């Protein structure tokens, strides 16, 4: 096995644009050399940013390192590039199991099974999920998510009392409001670390209605998001449910496209939380 790593490393050194980084990264990952695997995958991804397999490899390494937020982003990106990517579908199913969202996990597994009906890991995980048994996440080990813990339907969901607990920026940078600008969850701080939650909420009151009216006037259908670029940062506004409004803010190092993905995930969490409150 060490010879394989040496051989693959040599091939990659001779041809840095080669796709051999996929095999090398996977091999390093399987041997538990996560830092080396991380470097190989990241370098490969920089050279092949539109390769779904590269995002999948990087996501698996991130999952091994328990960086589930970024793993989600990478698998999500892999699916955007290749909607039938079985590795990404399995990876996302694994993460959904991890947060106790069995319905989403099963939906991803069903899609994976349509694409790869002979994959034993998918079939096993799906059977367990449909039977409501724990351990469905474990079945995805065969798909290469090595860091999976004993998880499944019995796993604890996100701590929804804090709405965004567990999400990137849960403590600051995410804000959920009702139509009249009252804060439902989340918090915002400015660059000096001072709370600006109430002020931002007040200014945003009515934005959902105005965005809706504008889209209607232009016959554009329902509005789905409002993204804005500021001198020091980016913001994204969505309506997770009814007139509720979700405001997500990040500095300019976070591209607007990535911010949209973060906002979509936060909106899904907010939507579940709002439904539970009714």
């Amino acid at each position: 096995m060490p010879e394989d790593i040496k051989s693959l490393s040599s091939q990659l050194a001779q041809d840095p644009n080669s796709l051999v980084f996929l095999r090398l990264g996977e091999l390093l990952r399987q041997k538990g050399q996560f830092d080396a695997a991380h470097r190989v995958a990241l370098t490969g991804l920089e050279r092949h940013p539109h390769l779904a397999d590269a995002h999948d490899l990087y996501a698996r390494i991130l999952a091994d390192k328990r960086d589930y937020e970024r793993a989600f982003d990478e698998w999500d990106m892999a699916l955007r590039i290749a909607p039938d990517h079985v590795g990404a579908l399995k990876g996302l199913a694994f993460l959904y199991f991890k947060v106790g969202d069995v319905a989403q996990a099963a939906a991803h597994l069903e899609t994976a099974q349509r694409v790869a009906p002979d994959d034993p890991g998918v079939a096993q995980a799906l059977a367990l999920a449909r039977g409501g048994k724990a351990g469905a996440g474990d079945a995805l080990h065969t798909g290469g998510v090595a860091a999976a813990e004993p998880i499944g339907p019995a796993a604890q969901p996100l701590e929804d009392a804090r709405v965004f607990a567990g999400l990137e920026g849960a403590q600051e940078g995410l804000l959920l409001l009702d139509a009249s600008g009252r804060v439902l969850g989340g918090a915002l701080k400015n660059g000096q670390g001072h709370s600006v939650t109430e002020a931002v909420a007040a200014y945003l009151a009515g934005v959902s209605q105005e965005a809706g009216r504008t889209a209607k006037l232009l016959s554009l259908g329902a509005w789905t998001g409002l993204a804005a670029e500021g001198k020091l940062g980016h913001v994204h506004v969505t309506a997770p449910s009814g007139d509720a409004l979700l405001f997500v803010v990040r500095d300019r190092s976070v591209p607007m496209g990535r911010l949209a993905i973060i906002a979509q995930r936060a909106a899904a969490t907010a939507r579940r939380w709002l439904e539970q409150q009714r």
Partner: protein
Amino acid sequence: MTTAPAGYGRALDLVTRVRGVRGAMLVSGEDGLIVAEQLMEGIKGAAVAALAASLANRLGRAMEAAGVGASLFWHLQAQAGALLVVGAPSGILVVAITEPDVNVGLVRLELLRAAAVAG
């Protein structure tokens, strides 16, 4: 109605020549009135201009309060298209109404150029 300066027409041309743009307007950010426009027939320009200015105002204040500074560009995404807006230094908003599959990056660049022309 006063005649719009010729530079305004050039500014709007920059935006409307992009494929997928259904129309463009220059809107006074202060009162939401149309300064100049090149819109496809059927678009209710005056109402859209007023709403765009109001949205820009609310969003701009929220962004300032959140510490991300003044709004440079914003993009209202909808199921069947989008509204993209850039503010010029004078307070004029350059507004584009687009199809859903438009090249947003290109429209953003042209809006920024148009804002520089509009002053």
